[in-house]
Structures are given as C-alpha cells and as structure tokens.
C-alpha cells in the first residue's frame, strides 16, 4: 500500500490544526515580544506532543533540558540555544552544545541533575524514554515533551513545533524552508533515476536494520533508493541474515564514523556475497547525519542520494 502523507486526510486535518496552533502560539509569543507581563494560569498553555500527550508548558520557556542529540541540534538551529541549560553526553553538535551541563546519557539520565537544573521543559526523542521519570518530573512541575518522527516531513514538523514552543516561529520556519529547498533539489536531481534496492545496516553482528516505521526508510526512498526491509513492521530490529542476503540488495548503507567512531565500518559477514558487496556498492555515511533526526538529516539525505546516484549529481 502506497501511503502518501501529504495527500492523506490526516495531513489536511493536521495542517488545519497546525495553523490554529500557530495562531495561538503566535499570539502567546507576540505577548512576550511586547513585554506584557503575564501571571498565573494565563502564562501556561497546553500543547500536544508526538506521543499524543497533552503537555502544559509555560508561555515563555527559558530553561530547556534536551535528552537527545537531535533535539539539541534543533534547539540550536532555531536560535534557542541560549535557553538550553542541560543536555546529554552525546550532544556534541554544534560545538557550543558540549559546554552545556551534562545530565548523563540518553538512556541513563540523572533525574537529580535534571531537577537541579530547574528546567521548565524536558525534551525526549522517543516515548520509550518516558516511563522512567515522567512521574518524578511531573511532581516537580517539569513538563516532558516527546518528539517521535517517522519521516523527513515529520522531522520538519518537529522543528516547526519546537519553534512554536520556544517562541522562535520565524526562525524555525526559515530553517525548515531552507531544508525543504535542499530536499527538493535532491528530489529534482533523482527524478529520472531508477530506484536502487538498499540494505541499511544499523549494526552487523548481530544484524540490525530499519523497518516500515523508521524515518530512515523514508529518507532512503527520498534519496532514490528503496529499502529491502521497507515493509517489515517496526522501526529498528534484529533481522534474519538469510533474508537480508536473499533480498539481493544492490547497495548497502553503513552508517558509521562521526561520534560512532569505527563501529559498524564493515559489512556483516552474511552480506559479503550480496550483489552490493560484490559490486563495491557499500556506502559509508556519517552516522551523525543519519541517526539524528534533526536539521543535519538533510545532509544525510544529500550524502545518501549522491552515494546511490553519483551520475545524477554531475
């Protein structure tokens, strides 16, 4: 089943909501710009995050903690870096992010440190991070906002909503417009190419790959490829070695380098005789540009498209 987000009913519904939300946010942010002091219940607003939760946040957010590198990158890209008071050990981009107070790593954040930083909002990148500490943070009146993009379009949406949330609507819109322009250029370049079948190797031993729900499956498609595991339910999972070989991928993507170092730099043993490996179509792409659904994901898209279709970019 071909499911096109942009043409669906939920998209129309979603844009309407977005417009309405933007109006509300704009109003709230406008009040900030005009320096009208707001007090009591009026200074709070309720937004819906990607997990469908109703989150109540202050109109003016001055203290943010980010629990994922992609969120840190978004916060800086939309010009809210100054409000970031805490992030994770993995948050190393842009360089300023390294000097922000560290609260542990993505999977083991220190709840005490988070509370000590007195954030008004804590941003997490998947709902699975939630369970552990939402309740404790709620007791401290700290809101938790979840982003969970499943496509490039939804990454743009994350950037837009964070822009609204942090009163950086225009800046976020500019960032998204620029990213969209670059994504459109890629789309134009690969318009006439024949899609390449791709195996995306998240890790080799054991073999992990991406499935239907991963934003990377969408990214591969936009880069002129088609993931051989695009129809498998789930986002990231352990995958059968023999099924991967039997799918006869024409190209293999190895996300490696960047903060990943030399991990995942070689093709899984089971895929050494795949058409991709035999024809030298194994492409290493900076993991930081692929595994972080933020502004640099478009860098990943460009690198991916160039690797899969060098002829289209001459």
């Amino acid at each position: 089943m071909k499911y096109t987000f942009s043409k669906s009913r939920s998209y129309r519904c979603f844009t309407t909501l977005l417009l309405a939300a933007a109006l509300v946010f704009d109003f709230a942010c406008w009040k900030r710009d005009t320096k009208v002091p707001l007090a009591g219940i009026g200074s709070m607003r309720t937004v819906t995050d990607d997990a469908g939760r109703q989150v109540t946040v202050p109109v003016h957010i001055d203290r943010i903690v980010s629990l994922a590198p992609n969120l840190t990158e978004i916060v800086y890209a939309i010009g809210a870096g100054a409000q970031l008071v805490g992030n994770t050990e993995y948050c190393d981009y842009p360089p300023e992010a390294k000097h922000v107070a560290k609260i542990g790593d993505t999977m083991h954040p220190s709840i005490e440190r988070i509370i000590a930083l007195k954030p008004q909002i804590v941003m997490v990148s998947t709902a699975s991070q939630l369970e552990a500490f939402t309740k404790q943070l709620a007791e401290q009146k700290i809101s938790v906002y979840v982003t969970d993009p499943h496509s490039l379009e939804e990454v743009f949406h994350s950037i837009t909503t964070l822009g609204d949330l942090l009163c950086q609507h225009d800046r976020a819109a500019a960032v998204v417009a620029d990213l969209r322009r670059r994504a459109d250029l890629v789309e134009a370049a690969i318009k006439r190419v024949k899609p390449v079948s791709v195996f995306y190797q998240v890790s080799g031993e054991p073999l992990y790959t991406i499935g239907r729900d991963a934003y990377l499956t969408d990214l591969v498609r936009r880069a002129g490829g088609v993931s051989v595991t695009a129809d498998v339910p789930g986002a990231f999972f352990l995958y059968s070695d023999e099924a991967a070989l039997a799918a006869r991928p024409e190209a293999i993507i190895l996300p490696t380098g960047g903060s990943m170092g030399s991990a995942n730099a070689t093709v899984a043993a089971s895929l050494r005789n795949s058409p991709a490996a035999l024809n030298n179509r194994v492409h290493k792409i900076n993991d930081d540009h692929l595994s972080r659904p933020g502004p640099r994901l478009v860098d990943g898209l460009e690198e991916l498209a160039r690797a899969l279709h060098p002829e289209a970019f001459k």
Partner: protein
Amino acid sequence: MSGGSQSIHTGRATFGRTLFVCGFLLLLLVLVLLIASVVGSQRLPLASSLCALAGKTNCGLSSEQQAILFDIRLPRILLAGAVGMSLATAGAGYQALLRNPLAEPYLLGVSNGAAVGTMTALVFFGAHEWSRPVMAFAGALLATFVVYRLARGRTGTTPERLILAGVIVTTFLSSAIVFITTLMDATRIRSFTFWLLGDLSGTTTSMLIVAMVAAGVGVGFLIANARSLNLMMLGERDAFDLGVEVRRVRLTVFVAASLLVGASVASSGSVGYVGLVVPHLVRLSFGSDNRVVIAASALAGAAFVIVADTLARTIIAPRELPVGAITALIGAPLFIFLLKRG
C-alpha cells in the same frame, strides 16, 4: 529438593544399552539437523537443498540459495549444535561432580563469569577476536572455583550452600556486567543486550571452530571421567577408597566444563537452561549412569538448541528473536514440571 537423591543414583547401564541410547539420539540429532537446514526465513526448494546437503553439485540451487544454505544457515546450525552440546554436557558434569541436580552453568554463575571475561576482552582487546574465548574460559574457570570454595563449608558441600554460592556469584557478576556495559559506547549496548540473552546470528567461522573444538575436547574429557564420576556419586571419600583420584577428577571436570561454557558464551552469549533441562530429561529417560548421561546429554543438548534456534529465526521471520529467550521459554516451564513430578 527430594527428587535429587532419587534421580541421581548409580543405576549402571550395559554397553549395549548405552550404544542403543546414543544411536537413537544420534538419529534424532541428524533428523533435527536436516529439518533445521531446510527451514528458515527464506524458503529453499526442499529436494534441491537435500541434494546439495548430500554433497552433490548441480542440484538446481542458485548461487544465492547456495550461499544462504552453506554460508549462513549451516554454520549457525552447527554453532547451535556445538553450544547445546557444550552447555548440556557441562551441566551434566557439574551435576555429577557436585552431586547436585540444580547445578547448571547459568545458575552457578559460570556463564556470567564467562560473559564478564568476554566483555572484558571486548572492551580492552577488542581487535583480537581470539582474546574472547580465552578470557571467557578464564572467567568461567574463576567463577567455578569461587563458587566451589564458597560452597565448601566445614561439613562439606551441601546442595543449598552451593546454590546460594551460585546466586551470590551470579548477582555479583551481573553487577560487573552492568558496570562494563556503562564503559561501552551506546551504539554497542543494544547488541549486547541481545548477546547476553544468547544470540547465534552473525556467526564467524573462527568462533564456530572454537566452539566445535572446545565441544569435542570438553565432552571427550568428561566422558573419559564418567566412570570416576559414577563412583564419586557415592561420596568423595568412598570414591577415594575405591581408587578414584578424586582431586584430579574434580580438577579435570571443572576445567573441561569451564572450557565448554567459556567457548559457548564467547561465541553466542548466555543461553540459559540448557544445562539444566537436558541432563534432567536424559536421566528421566535413560537412567543416571554418567557414561550414558554425559554422552546422551551431548547429543540431546545439540538437538535441543538447534530446535530452539530454528524457532528463534522462524517464528517472527524475517525478524528474529535471541535463542536464549526461546530456551528459557521452553526450559523454565519444563523445569517446573520436572520439579513437581520429581
């Protein structure tokens, strides 16, 4: 546990009976091997696969189907067999030597010792693949001796004391594993969570060789000491009076079992319950003469893990489960059943 003294008695088996039991299990193992090699997430033509497995060429398999069968599926099945054989025999060895039906590599903390060894090797000598089985063996041996020392009181080793010692060592080593995990970078942690549960995918040839050689050597040493183990089940003093070199046998069994566990864990993580369930089933079916129990456990253990791994790679195909999840899912209820029945 009251079933223990009942199931571990030295019912002697005749040579003919041993041969019959092993012949039967060998047939079963071959059958399981064949079924496992024609089942998988990719459907291969049955007749052509069997033809290719018989060693013939021109069976009509494409080069890719050939690669799936011989480069991916078969090595994995052989590894499953070697691991099952090793863990089941090691369990049988520990149970006979320690005269304790609950002695099992996983429960004694020996598997965790090997896991700590493997992880240490990965963190500090990541580049050298050979360091993994060596360190795993060292870890297993160390854990074995620590548990044994802890379990030996002034009045000798009691089953309860042994299990408590095992629990203490297991929990201590689990903490060590958690500690080492925090030293590793995030990208590797997820694959380690799978590996800790026991995972046979991504088999390398060198690891397969290590596991198979260790299985052969370890099982050989245990079978060679099976008669002494029979006598030692009367009690170490009585065995000594009957001419058994108790200390040498004990050392041999510990080293052989640690070798078996170390190689299995280094190649596939901690696959639980095999060393417990298989020897129990074998004793229930064929009596408790260690000459039969050890040889039969080797064959039945191999078949058991091959079946478990075949399930692991087919039930949610093309996605996979770690084999340890399946052995535990089969093993734990079966063990409870045995406990109730015993």
